[in-house]
């Protein structure tokens, strides 16, 4: 890789050459490395530190057709008081909702450290016109959200229209204004690790502040090998450009054990600089409760039942 990133905007040929020129990924080797790192044994004070870090990285999420202002307000309350019995429990990073719920979330979390993230761009399929996607984004941004989680046009990506995908990310980034942009690759639909590596670099080069695995609506969602690949991408991107970007796995991370395996990968693949809620997030709904239960187990020495933790 040369020094610095070539200018890829508006130049489909350069973009294509750059993405094709990325080193290939060997699936067997990648999966073996991910499986080996997953055997790390994180115990005692390290486990408690990892749990607290993981809680502070959660984007507490509800993305259902049945969402209502009341449900979103409850979720925000949960974000502000994750464990009523233990006030020193860290707060999650953000609450993640649909654009039409953004105003409710912004109001509920006003004055707190918990951010509001909204999905946008015809989430989850992304099948609409660019006008609609931009309007969707503006709806959330005008409500005052801190972060936008967009989806890429997987159809366009898979048919090789990389310039189009690049351009769309740039347009959404512009519509975000001050809000940080997370670019959802929907890795489960990209099918190959080579595609995931190319999509990661494409999203980073187009200005995404985060690359995010999944919508949570497609299986497989976040897997450890995919996270390894994306962590390597942000590490290499920083080495090349000097700019640090974030990674967000989403979908399927439900247990503390899973979360800690991800943190091990963050520390050993990308490096300690990414062990920070500003640079790494978990998109999850049920994970927070498991982290809270495990936190109590660590601090109080006994297992808690699920009924002692609030369901939202």
């Amino acid at each position, binding site marked *: 890789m040369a020094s610095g990133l070539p200018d890829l905007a508006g130049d489909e040929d350069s973009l294509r050459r750059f993405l094709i020129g990325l080193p290939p990924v060997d699936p067997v*080797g990648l999966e073996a490395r991910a499986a080996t790192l997953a055997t790390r044994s994180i115990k005692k004070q390290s486990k408690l530190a990892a749990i607290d870090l993981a809680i502070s990285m959660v984007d507490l999420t509800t993305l259902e057709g049945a969402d209502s202002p009341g449900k979103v307000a409850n979720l925000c309350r949960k974000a502000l008081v994750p464990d009523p019995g233990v006030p020193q429990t860290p707060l999650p990073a953000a609450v993640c909702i649909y654009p039409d719920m953004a105003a409710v979330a912004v109001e509920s979390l006003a004055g707190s450290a918990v951010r509001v993230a909204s999905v946008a761009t015809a989430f989850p399929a992304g099948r609409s016109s660019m006008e609609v996607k931009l309007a969707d984004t503006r709806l959330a941004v005008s409500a005052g959200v801190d972060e936008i989680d967009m989806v890429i046009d997987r159809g366009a990506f898979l048919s090789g229209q990389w310039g189009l995908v690049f351009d769309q990310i740039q347009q959404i980034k512009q519509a975000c204004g001050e809000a940080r942009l997370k670019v959802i690759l929907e890795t489960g639909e990209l099918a190959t690790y080579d595609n995931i590596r190319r999509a990661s670099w494409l999203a980073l080069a187009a200005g995404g502040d985060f690359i995010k695995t999944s919508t949570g609506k497609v299986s497989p969602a976040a897997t450890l090998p995919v996270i390894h690949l994306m962590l390597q991408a942000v590490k290499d991107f920083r080495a090349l450009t000097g700019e640090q970007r974030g990674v967000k796995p989403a979908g399927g991370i439900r247990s503390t054990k899973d979360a800690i395996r991800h943190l091990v990968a963050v520390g050993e693949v990308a490096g300690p600089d990414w062990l920070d809620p500003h640079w790494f997030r978990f998109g999850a709904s049920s994970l927070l409760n498991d982290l809270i239960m495990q936190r109590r187990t660590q601090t109080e020495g006994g297992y808690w039942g699920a009924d002692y933790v609030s369901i939202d």
Partner: protein
Amino acid sequence: MDLDYAPAPESAAIGRIADRYLPFIDGEFVEGNGADLESLNPATGQPLTTVSTVSTEDIDVAVASARRAQTRVWSPMSGPERGKYLFRIARLIAERSRELAVVETLDNGKPIKETRDFDVPTAAQHFFHHAGWADKLQHLGLGPDPQPLGVAGQVIPWNFPLLMAAWKIAPALAAGNTVVIKPAETTSVSILVLAEILAEADLPPGVVNIVPGAGDIGAALVSHDGLDKVAFTGSTQVGKSIQSALAGTGRHLTLELGGKGANVVFDDAAVDQAIEGIVNGIFFNQGQVCCAGSRLLVQESIADEFVARLKDRVETLRVGDPMDKNTDVGAINSQTQYARIGSLVDAGREEGAQVWTTSCPLPEQGWFIPPTILEGASPTMRIAREEIFGPVLTVMTFRTPDEALAKANNTPYGLSAGVWTDKGSKAMAMASKLHAGVVWDNTFNRFDPTAPFGGYRESGFGREGGRTGMAAYLEPDEEA
């Protein structure tokens, strides 16, 4: 922030290390007539336990016992019956896997992660695989009724004590041979725990005899008149002397000796996974692997970036207490080996190679060597020619595939090689011209009981594993 890993030690008590271990001869644990030896824990340098060793008279007893068992019990026994014993041994290894992993780590110094996830499960696999052959000898391509050779004398090294025991014992027994086996003097404990398993499996007395001792006992064993077959894994130097001793005796011989494996990385390789493979190739088991990928040959067009990324990765390796579940690189097996590795690295430095080591802090006691990379090596240097048998990687570059081949093959050894390229045609072309018994394509140090393993030239001859490995313990049926 940094996520420091708290110590996560496996419990040493699980190993149930005894005060004293005895030779296993004719189905009994008996006091040997040799001098006791102290087995040390390489992670501390402190005594772990005492092992009673055998004398040459004990070897006579063991060989006679193996002969009786072979002619009266084991060879006449039907294949399915022999298979049952081997399956039972395999299951017992699996059942006691955690204990065996701890024993091996305490006695050998390798990380518990490796003994737990590699050595012990693979040892069980070898027994499972060969148990299946016991009643299928007629399907090996050696005629309708191939015959066992008789009594096998086996000498194994200290780098994979239990696994090498399994590699040697399982095929010999499946084919109907009996065994007298000598472990390395620094690592006798795990094979003597295996002896407990053999006894528990009710293996008939004399089918396997285990005779701990030093090199003189090994020499006495391999030159014993009562043997039909000798199998040795160890250094090329000792292998050569065994071959001289056996010349003209008509006894069968297989040798698995040293190596200086080349790992060839082309500029179109999957770079991140190639780096993983290089790391695994040379730092697995502290590089104390005969097939280690100790010479990195990287295409000049990507060499600088590749080596920089490699160092970055090596920096994340955790060197330390082998009993800690998060340790990637453990202790060197013995003081002798520790000193030898150090002197070869010094020789490399004096000959002009640049020595780089990881900054990971090392424990204050025990025999630890940090993962080391020697850059600017030229093919004339000792470090590029001699087997180091430690966590030391020599880096050289090449420009064309022909140059890569010439450099990779420019060694008296011929055990292993690796090729890293995303292009299948290139990998196949290289594999067909590399002089090595094993060529790994886009991976390294992968072992499986179904895959024959062995070398050419100064790396020895004969194969272990799979059908070819069985053939090394059988006389083909002349009727075929």
